[in-house]
């Protein structure tokens, strides 16, 4: 459903992505792995229209979305849960969730709200609390919930386990797997290699702005190169 070819992007004169190829098929969890600063978030933000790529092609569900505006990309169902959550701190939990369907999924708002509160009962308990006063883990739930409110075709999760306690990280990966089993396609961007590969179908490894390795998750798990550089084995 997502097809990225030869993507180049950066910030001003600084090139970060230098010809990235990547694809996600419907129903998959695809992991995008890479060290800090590899360019993972840069890739996400170019997919979602926050920045415009300098060269390359991005197709999503058959449409060319390369360089399109953020609202149009939301329209076609490519939804990102960004690194650092980026919830609206001055709005209540409920308002944050409702804004998740500001552009897409508005018809299903009530139903999706029910569903999100079902997945995250914690959020329901805190529905009138300001998002800025939630704990890090709760904010991450809220960010994911907000993403789900848009009826995503593909959900990009940028380091959802960042800053969570080990127990919560465990829960987070379990949740991602369940969402996928319910039919959601997911691009999981992570530094947490082992746990990501454990739930992903396929994976890509981004290094210095290019895809250094890719393949089925199970195969990568046993790849000597990956073991050496990311798992210290």
């Amino acid at each position, binding site marked *: 459903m997502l097809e990225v070819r030869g993507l180049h992007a950066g910030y001003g004169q600084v090139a970060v992505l230098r010809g990235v190829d990547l694809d996600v098929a419907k129903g998959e969890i695809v992991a995008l792995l890479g060290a800090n600063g590899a360019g993972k978030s840069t890739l996400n933000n170019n997919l979602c229209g926050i920045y415009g790529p300098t060269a390359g092609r991005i197709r999503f569900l058959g449409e060319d979305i390369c360089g399109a505006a953020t609202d149009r990309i939301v329209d076609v169902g490519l939804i990102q849960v960004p690194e650092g959550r*980026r919830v609206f701190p001055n709005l209540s939990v409920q*308002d944050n969730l409702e804004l998740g369907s500001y552009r*897409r999924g508005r018809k299903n708002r009530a139903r999706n709200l029910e569903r999100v509160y079902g997945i995250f009962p914690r959020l329901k308990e805190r529905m009138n609390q300001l998002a800025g006063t939630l704990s890090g883990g709760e904010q991450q739930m809220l960010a994911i919930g907000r993403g789900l409110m848009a009826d995503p075709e593909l959900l990009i999760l940028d380091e959802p386990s960042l800053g969570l306690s080990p127990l919560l990280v465990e829960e987070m990966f379990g949740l991602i797997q369940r969402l996928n089993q319910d039919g959601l396609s997911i691009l999981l961007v992570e530094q947490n290699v082992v746990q990501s590969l454990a739930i992903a179908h396929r994976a890509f490894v981004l290094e210095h702005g290019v895809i250094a390795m890719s393949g089925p998750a199970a195969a990568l798990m046993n790849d000597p190169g990956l073991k050496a550089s990311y798992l210290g084995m």
Partner: protein
Amino acid sequence: MLELSILLPAILNGLTTGAIYALIALGLTLIYGVLHIINFAHGSLLMLALYGVFFLHSLFGIDPYLALPIAAAALFAVGYGLQRLIIGHASHGKDENILLVTLGLSVIIENLALYLWRSDTRTIDTPYSFEVVDFGVAFIPVPKVIAFFGALLVAALLWLLMARTDLGRAIRALAKERQGAKLVGINVEHIFAMSFGIGCACLGVAACLLLPSFYVSPQVGHAFVLVAFTVVVLGGMGSFVGALLGGLIIGVTESLGGLFLGESLGQLGIFLIFIIVLLFRPTGLLGQRA
């Protein structure tokens, strides 16, 4: 000790003026809260609105209160266009540029008004201009009573808009978290312009409520905008309830100042309050710490 019979009318009068101040300040604080723009053109846009309402009355015989939807819509359109076509482009994301742009706009608008309409002070006559309402403790002119309740009503509607609609949520969301806003599909340029437009629409309403008991001249905006800035700082930059309370406080202060110090020094109290707030509570009554 002053008689209550003198004090109470002054307070009631102050409240009616204060509600108008609040309305003007609401527009200012909305624009500031979302775009972080201190809109120096606010006063000249109010002046434009007053002329608009004046001419609707003198040329077409439209009562200022009936002109309210027209004035609000027109000012909304002007504000939306200004932000989308001029301010947004000229600013390049730099606050000091925006400052100069809005300042420049106000100079242009005012001089245009001076050129077109001379510096004469104009007023309108309505059947109710000299009617009063008896509040027991004081007689208050009908236009002022309408202005008071009208301003409060509009403030309440604005609050509902901000609290209960997706537009309001989007405006508040964008004020604090631009990237998150983009990721839910909020069109940043559009919502910025909507905020500016709504802020200006407040001026259209204020003009309609004001004109029956006031006047219009090319410089009429100055007095209001200075007070509105004070209200915004007093209430806390970007705070809605703050602007409302601040407006009423300032209105009463001015009125009582006029009573004790004489009409011409009435505004002295306002600036005393302004300085005291800046010294002891720089974030304003209801403002958040940065």
